[in-house]
């Protein structure tokens, strides 16, 4: 399976996402924001970082990059898209998922290994988890507070679009402890924590078993490989 990782000016975790794809057993394809070519990939990752320096609003300028036209089309056709951190912000700016992001409630940057509960194990990026499973994924953000109006919160809670919820600590003041959401179809998922940083023993979060041994993030990428088996043909 070929999974595209889009690099925007200011992307930081694009190479980490490519590595995670490789570790999961798929082939990473480096995509460039300025191109209109998805190169026939079967899934797309919008990685973390500071696209356009977070100027204007985090993710706002990148959501208008040339390749986003194709990403939005592909997402609407059912191609799996994962937005991580800055990528999550782009998905919100591109209206592929509901809600928006603001500065963390405490106004500070935060980095921690974050406990999450999988609230929907039926999306293309979470089908390898058990419903309600608790996982640990590194988190690092300053503009990570997920917000939405009451009606939207009610709707996404009711439709199972809340994919992940913070457990123990709400690190940024996100409404309803929401850490990640999906679109209605479940092919587009965005979350603030970084699953690509928990895919390789020795470089992940600490676990009770050993230091830096957490690889809970790998399941995001193996999930999409499993989901792809149900897709009949790659886009374009």
């Amino acid at each position, binding site marked *: 399976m070929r999974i595209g990782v889009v690099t925007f*000016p*200011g992307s930081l*975790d694009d190479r980490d996402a490519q590595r995670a794809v490789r570790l999961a057993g798929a082939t990473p394809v480096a995509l*460039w924001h300025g191109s209109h070519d998805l190169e026939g990939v079967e899934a797309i990752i919008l990685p973390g970082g*500071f696209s356009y*320096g977070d*100027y204007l609003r985090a993710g706002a300028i990148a959501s208008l990059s040339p390749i986003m036209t194709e990403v939005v089309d592909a997402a609407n056709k059912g191609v799996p898209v994962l937005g991580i951190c800055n990528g999550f912000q782009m998905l919100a700016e591109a209206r592929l998922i509901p809600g928006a992001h603001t500065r963390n409630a405490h106004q500070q940057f935060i980095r921690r290994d974050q406990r999450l509960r999988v609230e929907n194990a039926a999306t293309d990026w979470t089908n390898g988890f058990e419903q309600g499973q608790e996982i640990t994924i590194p988190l690092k953000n300053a503009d990570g507070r997920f917000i939405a109006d009451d009606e939207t919160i009610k709707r996404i809670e009711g439709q199972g679009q809340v994919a992940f919820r913070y457990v123990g600590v709400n690190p940024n003041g996100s409404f309803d402890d929401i850490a990640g959401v999906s679109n209605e179809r479940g092919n587009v998922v965005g979350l603030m924590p970084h699953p690509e940083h928990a895919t390789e023993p020795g470089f992940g979060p600490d676990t009770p078993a050993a230091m830096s041994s957490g690889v809970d993030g790998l399941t995001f990428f193996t999930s999409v490989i499993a989901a792809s088996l149900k897709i009949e043909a790659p886009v374009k």
Partner: protein
Amino acid sequence: MTTETELTQAPGTHVPDTVANAAATPDREQPYAALGLKEDEYLSIREILGRRPTSGELAMYSVMWSEHCSYKSSKMYLRQFGEKVSPTMKKNLMVGMGENAGVVDVGGGWAVTFKGESHNHPSYIEPFQGAATGVGGIVRDIISMGARPVAVMDQLRFGDIDADDTRRVVDGVVSGISFYANCLGLPNIGGETVFDKVYQGNPLVNVLSVGVLRHEDLHLANAKGAGNKVVLFGARTGGDGIGGASILASDTFSAGGPTKRPSVQVGDPFAEKVLIECCLELFRDELVEGIQDLGAAGISCATSELASNGDGGMFIELDKVLLRDPTLTAEEILMSESQERMMAVVHPSKLDAFLAVVDKWDVETSVLGEVTDTGRLVINWHGEEIVNVEPRTVAVDGPVYERPVAYPTWIDELQADTARGLPGPRPATSSGRSSSRCSAHRTSPTRAGSPTSTTRMSSATRPCRSPTTAA
């Protein structure tokens, strides 16, 4: 990028001093003292050139011969770091003193490059931007070696923790370092902080950047090969850090236009992140002969250093520099310390490919001139020659001073005043437990608290210092 002509300076707004003019008017008074040059230094510039310097040359010499750029008072001490390195110590050293950053072989074909630099005074004046641009400068040094920066560290000294002004400096410096490095994706992997009243009004802000590279990717910045193009790319040149040049401009020319400009530069980490990727791609595709970062002394430094390290000659058309502020004078452009700029030496056959990569990253570029074999650094402004110097005299052969030094006698008492002098619960006989590096200098393993338990050291044995006073 095509609007170059509108955005570079309109000709006629400022007429700089030309080389011909300097030769014709040897007696013109020049504001060398206001630029920080001593009379003998000014006279030696006149001797080197065989005439008075133009205002542009004076700008270059004054900034390149400043303590900040030339280390003229500390060079004789710093030099010893190179002289006292033994072959054993050099075993894994791939690049030592004199280049943008040191490089150490770590095996397996990999190397690590380090650059540490202080940004003390700017960080006191404007803590956030001072510290942030300190990070920016060392990261560009790492890039210019062909390495990918991977981490930063800091070593900080602030004034008394209870003093009124300390909070302003601490909060600004810490946020400035973390903001800039984080935006580049560089974790801060360690550091140390000390508060002491001796740093009141003079904090020390040292930041280190670490880069990783393959041996074969190592590059050194020099301007070799006559005919190769000299290209400036990155952020536009503005009025940052040119307090001194405005003296020149207002002294020599009629008033009008802003002369008071910020002396601390403002950083744009996004522009730097894009530069990192752009430079690494230029190196990967072998499109550059060398890349030099622009920091203190800006274009004055980059052109004279590149030329000194290469074949010795360079021709620059200064009016090709892309400006953020079109009212800048030639002297100001030479001295500007605008951040996130790089200078590359490019073979003419690779210029189109170079420009394509730079364009891909939306980085602005202008070809300023080329490497020559004349041995002279010549800079023109709208067709007129305003600088014609031997680059080494600017960048390398500046004055070096042996300042009078005196041993600070108070320091003996301070060094002797260690925790060992305090009565404590430690058993009196267990001298082996005091594992200080100083233990070898102790006269005898006498009881803690005894007046003879510390030795007054002569300056010859000075390297052993009490950890409580090491700074």
